[in-house]
């Protein structure tokens, strides 16, 4: 008969994957509580820094049982980062564990909270130090800890685990007074080795580092006597002639460096966890008659009766004695102090080599809750008691009538009239928004009550109608695309500037909540630096669409290259391009494309595939068609150095290695249930407020111009069969 666990497991596997995490947590929580009752051990709530995946660290809550026999429950005060080891684990270097999740850290100081049965070496409230991991509270075996004398500060004691590693190397080196000692590697362990070597009165300690960023720490009181950088050259290394070389850099070529520093007959002590092969070392070692000694900390015995084999406890005790007598000082090596809640940011900087910290501590003493995420507000132009902008709707077809209805719902706008070449359609739409119908465009422009025109007309009419509106002193709201050609676009921009009227283009998808949410995520750094874009939008447009069957005013202008300018690119893809520009803040710099008309009764394209290079170097791929049967596909993917996002359907999915809005990094999060928004109305509102405030509109002429520039370059690139640069906006 299957056990309860097996039953539970089978049930669990039937649950959809995205619903499993809370079930798993509930199971483990219940089980832990049951164990707590059975074993009569308390339940301890704590937090721990966990490596969730490559390059991803997170502070997560966790629970565990109080101390078992022989254990001590410790509340950590400070834990010290082992920069080399922890970075190597995070980036998955050869020789590291490469399995996640894992909990880092092995050096710290804390206070005893509780004792397991049989522990007599410590008392509650006493400070202890040892191989403490990066956790707020943790059970430790008593023999892995040592008492901290009152004369030793938290900062000094916290380094115990790191000092142990260096100390073992120094002990194996058996430095004699008067010997010359070189320490290769000036990270934290190298700095500690300098100071420990000093205790043995060598004639000289030479610190050898890759660069000079740590020279001042190396030469501080109690440290090395002089500093040699690798950039000083091979002869400078050979001139060192050290009797003892402590190799503690752990880089690919550090053994060779160490051997070069050694005098003939010298000793090289391997402390760095060098995980790479270096084939040149043997010849060097043989020539120099060097003895090489390993000094890994795992060689330390816990309990050993062999003469002069120091146990862990004895080494710890010696360290505390040296610190208490101030013969060993290390607290000044702390160059960075981090709150555990910021570990995600810290490890991101460590992985990417930002800064050159030496000693880094997590301070568990004053943990604050992370501040609530600050979501940058969408800029709103505040206009009090605003007079609605009076707008004439020009073009009342399918899109124009939608625009009219959307605008009419906004208090910032009032539709004062409607014009369409089809008088019946104009009258219908005008009635629907309680406005008059104009007999001609000129009549609309002549109406003094009209402040702005909203042009939803065939693309080839954009320029002339905009110029006329601008000359009449009317602000212009243009449906996309801006125009059919760049010359037309330049004329539009110039005319509006000349006549001092505002100009905008309808890229109102920017007002969709999920688009704005995506932009906020990028702005918060969820993706890091953008490195790739992949846009895919496919649908099926029946023949009738091209003849205006979906419109209240059927017309075949969309099939005409002269009138429409382009097909799929202008009709649909321009929106996607615009909101990707909006989300990322990037623009295309170079492009090549293939396009064709493969299934539509048009002169314009119905299929396109575009490659582009963005202005930050990211690479983009855009693929779309209006002749794909089997269901619509609309999926936009954007990714960067730290994460990815995906827009599909009505949802937004985000994956980040960073903690964004408190979300656990290293997993996909689905953002859904966005509010319904009148996005066209928001576009109108934004424009109206800008006009009243005398400010640039949220969607500027440059946005329209740049969008058109990209699309026309795409078309030209195909026609000329070569990649082309995308022109830059010239109207600054």
């Amino acid at each position, binding site marked *: 008969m299957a056990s309860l666990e097996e039953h539970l497991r089978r049930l669990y596997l039937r649950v959809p994957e995205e619903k499993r995490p809370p079930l798993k947590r509930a199971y483990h929580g219940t089980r832990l509580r049951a164990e707590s009752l059975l074993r009569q051990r308390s339940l301890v709530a704590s937090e721990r820094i966990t490596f969730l995946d490559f390059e991803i660290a997170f502070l997560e809550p966790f629970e565990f049982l109080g101390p078992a026999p022989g254990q001590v429950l410790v509340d950590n005060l400070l834990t010290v980062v082992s920069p080399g080891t922890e970075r190597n684990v995070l980036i998955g270097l050869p020789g590291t564990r490469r399995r996640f999740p894992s909990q880092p850290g092995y050096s710290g100081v804390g206070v005893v909270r509780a004792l397991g049965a049989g522990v007599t070496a410590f008392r509650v409230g006493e400070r202890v130090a040892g191989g403490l991991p990066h956790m707020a509270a943790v059970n430790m075996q008593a023999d892995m800890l040592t008492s901290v004398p009152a004369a030793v500060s938290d900062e000094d004691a916290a380094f115990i685990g790191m000092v142990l590693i260096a100390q073992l190397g120094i002990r194996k080196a058996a430095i*004699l007074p*008067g010997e010359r000692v070189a320490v290769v590697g000036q990270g934290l362990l190298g700095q500690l080795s300098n100071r420990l070597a000093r205790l043995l009165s060598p004639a000289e300690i030479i610190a050898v580092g890759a660069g000079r960023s740590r020279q001042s720490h190396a030469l501080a009181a109690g440290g090395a006597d002089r500093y040699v950088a690798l950039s000083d050259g091979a002869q400078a290394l050979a001139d060192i002639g050290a009797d003892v070389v402590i190799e503690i850099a752990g880089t690919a070529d550090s053994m060779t460096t160490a051997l070069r520093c050694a005098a003939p007959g010298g000793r090289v002590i391997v402390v760095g966890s060098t995980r790479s092969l270096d084939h040149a070392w043997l010849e060097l070692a043989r020539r120099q008659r060097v003895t090489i000694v390993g000094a890994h900390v795992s060689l330390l015995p816990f309990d050993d009766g062999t003469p002069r084999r120091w146990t862990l406890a004895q080494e710890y005790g010696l360290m505390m004695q040296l610190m208490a007598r101030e013969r060993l000082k290390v607290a000044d090596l702390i160059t960075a102090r981090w709150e555990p809640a910021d570990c995600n940011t810290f490890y991101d900087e460590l992985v990417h080599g930002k800064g050159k910290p030496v000693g880094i501590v997590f301070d568990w003493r004053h943990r604050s809750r992370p501040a609530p995420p600050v979501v940058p507000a969408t800029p709103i132009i505040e206009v009090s008691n605003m007079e609605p902008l009076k707008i004439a709707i020009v073009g009342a077809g399918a899109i124009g009538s939608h625009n009219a209805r959307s605008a009419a719902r906004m208090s910032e706008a009032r539709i004062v009239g409607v014009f369409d070449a089809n008088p019946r359609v104009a009258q219908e739409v005008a009635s629907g928004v309680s406005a008059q119908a104009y007999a001609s465009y000129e009549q609309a422009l002549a109406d003094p009550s009209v402040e702005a025109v909203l042009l939803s007309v065939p693309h080839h009419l954009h320029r002339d109608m905009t110029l006329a509106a601008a000359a009449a002193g009317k602000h212009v709201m243009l449906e996309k695309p801006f125009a059919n050609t760049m010359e037309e676009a330049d004329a539009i921009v110039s005319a509006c500037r000349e006549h001092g009227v505002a100009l905008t283009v309808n890229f109102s998808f920017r007002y969709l909540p999920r688009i704005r949410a995506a932009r906020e995520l990028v702005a918060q750094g969820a993706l890091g630096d953008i490195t790739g874009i992949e846009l895919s939008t496919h649908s099926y447009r029946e023949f009738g669409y091209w003849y205006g069957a979906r419109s209240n005013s059927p017309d075949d202008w969309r099939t005409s290259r002269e009138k429409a300018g382009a097909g799929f690119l202008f009709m649909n893809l321009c929106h996607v391009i615009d909101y990707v520009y909006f989300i990322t803040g990037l623009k295309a710099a170079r492009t090549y494309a293939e396009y064709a008309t493969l299934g539509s009764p048009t002169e314009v394209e119905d299929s396109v595939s575009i490659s582009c290079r963005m202005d930050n170097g990211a690479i983009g791929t855009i693929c779309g068609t209006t002749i794909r049967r089997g269901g619509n596909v609309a999926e936009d993917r954007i990714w960067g150095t730290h994460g990815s996002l995906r827009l599909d359907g009505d949802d937004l999915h985000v994956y980040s290695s960073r903690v964004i809005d408190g979300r656990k990094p290293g997993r996909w999060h689905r953002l859904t249930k966005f509010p319904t928004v009148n996005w066209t109305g928001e576009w109108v509102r934004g424009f109206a407020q800008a006009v009243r405030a005398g400010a640039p509109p949220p969607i500027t002429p440059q946005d329209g111009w740049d969008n058109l520039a990209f699309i026309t370059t795409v078309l030209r690139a195909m026609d000329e069969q070569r990649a082309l640069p995308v022109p830059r906006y010239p109207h600054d």
Partner: protein
Amino acid sequence: MTDSRAPLAVRVTPVETMGRCRATSGFGDYALARVVDAHGASEWRPGMRVLALGDAAQAAPGQVVSVAAADCLPPPEHLDDGAALALPPLLAALGAWQDLQLELGEVAVVSGDTPFAALLALTAHWHGALPVVTLAAAAPGFAGGEWVSPHDPREAHSRIQSLQQDKPGFAAIDVSGSALVADILFQALPRWGRLHLGGAPSEALTVDFYRDVHVKGARVFTRALDARSVWPTAVAAPDLLRRAARLIESTSRQNAVLEALAW
């Protein structure tokens, strides 16, 4: 290679502050001199400085005496006369701790109340010993360690044991030659302890070899720690001479050595 018994004619150098190292009582006399005539020995040349034993140690400053080549040790040229004269006791001290393989963190005990004992304590500190214990009737010349008086042997033994705590290593050097002190040290020796009886014995010493050496796995050295023992060691171990010279080059260390020797 010169026959080590071949004589060299040396003129003893007058050194105002050191004389003939009279302060290192018990260590043995030696002097700083310059070679006058090497009698054809190629590795010696007239004018070369030497630290010399034998008749040179008893001669007056400026006097020319004949000394066996084996009793001559050339100090490094770059050391001044004061530093050079400090070399022999320093070599003896460093060599003794090296024989005992004193290492970082171990307990080091020095018994004797001569300046040479103070130098032994200082060099134990240089080896990283913690603590350095001086077992002597008078306050030690080395102030950086612990002082135990042998006046009450039982109390002294108990105190030394408490200073050992649970250290895995114990090394001691006696230059007092006192049987009472040696007895304290033998009893205080822990398992695998190391002891060097380096002083000239002033009285007969009775040792329970079974209890204090055999069962404990102790290691006992008996080479006299005096001037005469240094010369062959320095010749046989050029590394030791090189290290000592490097140490004495440092002004602070040289001052510490001279202070210990009370020069």
